[in-house]
C-alpha cells in the first residue's frame, strides 16, 4: 500500500448507478458537497446496457432509452459539481459513517456527515450439472457484452427464466444478430410483461412454461443443453427430456441486493422474497436504522431503474433536509418529499408494481408506524 489518506465530504454515496446519481444530483442541487464512490471505470451502473425504452409516465422519462438516461444523469451530476471517485472500491462502511476505500494501490478513509448506499444488485444463478461451463452466463452478462462491449458471445441461445430480464435480453440478443431458440420458464406462466413476451414470440421464439434446464453439456464450453418438463411440484417429468444445440445459455432467474456494506454497517434486515431476499429496513425517507445512513435503489429491493432513480431522488432530498440545506420552510420541504413518494407510488401501480409496493409498505408499517 502506497499511502493512507483521509478524505472529507458532506454526503458520501456508494454506487454511481441510477439511484446513486439521482441522490447525488438532488443533494448537490441544494448545495450539499457530494462525493460518489464507484468501483467501475465508468459511472452509470447498469444503465448503459439498457437500450430499450423505459416505461412509466413522462416524469419518469418513459420512452427514453436507458443509456440516454445515463448520459443525462452524468451531465447533471457534472453540472451540479458532484465529485465522482471511479475505480474505487468501498470495502468498509462503519456505523460512525466512515467508508474505507481502495483506489489502485492507495487506501483512503472517507469521512462524511451522511451516507447513501446505492450498491445495486447481482444476478442469481441456477445450478444444474454442467452449469459452470463457459458460455453459460448471467443474462445481464450477455446484455453487457452485446450492448456495452459490442461483441456477440453466442449465436444460438437458450434463456432460462421469462421475467423481464430474460425476455428483454432475448430480444436484444436477436437485435444483436443471434438466434434465440427458446426461453424456458419453471413456473406455469410467463414472469415478465406481456408486451416483451409477445415481441419475441412474434419473432418465433418458443416460450416453454413448466420447463427447466437439467444439464449443460460440452467438452470445453457449452454445446448442448438438456431441458425437461417439470410438474407442479417442480419435479422433472421423466421421459420429457430433450437435447437442444446451443452455444450460449443465459440465466435470468432474478437478482438479489448487493448488501454486504449494509450488513457490515450493522443495519437491520427483513426477508421479503417479493423484493429479492434480505432487505435493509428503511423509513419513508430511505433512512436505514443507522442514523445518517440512507439506502436507495436495488439494494433496498429488486425493482427497476425508474424506481431506483426515484428512491435516489427521495434520499437526496431527505439528506439535504437533514443537513439543513433545503432553503425553504418545513411545510414546503415535506410537500417536496411527498411528491417524490407519490412518483414512486405511481411506478408501483399495476399487477407487477403492486406487490412490491405492498412489500415496501410491510416494512414501513412494521417498523415505523
Amino acid at each position, binding site marked *: 500500500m502506497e499511502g493512507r489518506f483521509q478524505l472529507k465530504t458532506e454526503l458520501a454515496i456508494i454506487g454511481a448507478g441510477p439511484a446513486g446519481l439521482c441522490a447525488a444530483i438532488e443533494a448537490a442541487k441544494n448545495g450539499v458537497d457530494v462525493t460518489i464512490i464507484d*468501483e*467501475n*471505470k465508468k459511472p452509470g451502473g*447498469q444503465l448503459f446496457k439498457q*437500450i430499450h425504452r423505459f416505461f412509466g409516465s413522462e416524469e419518469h422519462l418513459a420512452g427514453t*432509452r436507458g443509456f440516454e438516461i445515463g448520459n443525462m444523469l452524468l451531465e447533471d451530476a457534472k453540472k451540479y459539481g458532484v465529485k465522482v471517485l471511479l475505480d474505487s472500491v468501498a470495502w468498509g462502511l462503519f456505523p460512525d459513517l466512515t467508508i474505507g476505500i481502495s483506489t489502485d494501490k492507495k487506501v483512503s478513509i472517507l469521512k462524511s456527515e451522511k451516507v447513501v448506499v446505492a450498491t445495486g444488485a*447481482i*444476478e442469481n444463478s441456477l445450478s444444474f450439472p454442467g452449469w*459452470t*461451463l*463457459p*458460455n*453459460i*452466463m*448471467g443474462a*445481464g*452478462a*450477455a446484455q*453487457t*457484452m*452485446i*450492448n456495452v*462491449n*459490442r*461483441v*456477440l*458471445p453466442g*449465436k444460438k441461445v437458450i434463456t432460462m427464466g421469462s421475467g423481464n430480464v430474460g425476455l428483454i435480453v432475448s430480444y436484444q440478443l436477436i*437485435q*444483436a*444478430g443471434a438466434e434465440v431458440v427458446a426461453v424456458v420458464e419453471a413456473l406455469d406462466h410467463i414472469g415478465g410483461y406481456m408486451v416483451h413476451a409477445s415481441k419475441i414470440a412474434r419473432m418465433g421464439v418458443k416460450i416453454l412454461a413448466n420447463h427447466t434446464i437439467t444439464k449443460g453439456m460440452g467438452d*470445453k*464450453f457449452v454445446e448442448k443443453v438438456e431441458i425437461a418438463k417439470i410438474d407442479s411440484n417442480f419435479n422433472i417429468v421423466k421421459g420429457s427430456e430433450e437435447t437442444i444445440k446451443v452455444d450460449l445459455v443465459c440465466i435470468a432467474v432474478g437478482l438479489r441486493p448487493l448488501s454486504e456494506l449494509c450488513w457490515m454497517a450493522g443495519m437491520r434486515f427483513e426477508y421479503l422474497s417479493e423484493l429479492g431476499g434480505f432487505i435493509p429496513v428503511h423509513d419513508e425517507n430511505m433512512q436505514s436504522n443507522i442514523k445518517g445512513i440512507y439506502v436507495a435503489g436495488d439494494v433496498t429491493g429488486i425493482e427497476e431503474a425508474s424506481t431506483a432513480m426515484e428512491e435516489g431522488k427521495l434520499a437526496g432530498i431527505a439528506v439535504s433536509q437533514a443537513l439543513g440545506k433545503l432553503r425553504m420552510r418545513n411545510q414546503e420541504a415535506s410537500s417536496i418529499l411527498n411528491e417524490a413518494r407519490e412518483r414512486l407510488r405511481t411506478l408501483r401501480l399495476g399487477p407487477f408494481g403492486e406487490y412490491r409496493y405492498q412489500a415496501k409498505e410491510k416494512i414501513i408499517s412494521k417498523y415505523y408506524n
Partner: protein
Amino acid sequence: MDKNNLRIENHPVLGEYIKGKEVKITFDGKVITAYKGEMIATALIASGIKVFRYTPKKNMPRGLFCAIGRCTDCVMEVNGRPNIRTCITPVENGMIINTQIGTGQWKEGSN
C-alpha cells in the same frame, strides 16, 4: 458475421460501432487484434475464445460469467500477474494474456 470477428459492427439501436485505435495483444502466444477501450474479455470473445482459465482442484474450464467484475470467473494471467478480472480490465497494446491454470503463476518482475 465473420467467425473471427464477433464484434457487432452495426446495431439497429446503437448504430455503427466506433472503435478505438487498433492494438495488438497476445493470447497464449497468438497475436490478436483489439481496439483501445475494449475489455480483455471482449477482445477474446470477439476472436472466438471462450475458455479463460482452468480451476485449481478439478481442472474444469471457466469463462465469462457476470461481465461486471463481481464473480471473478473470468480471471486470467495478464502481463505476468494472475487473477486479473478480464471483463473489467481494458486492453493495452502489447499486453500478454495467458489462460490461467489453477491459481496461476506470478512472473518475476511483475507487480
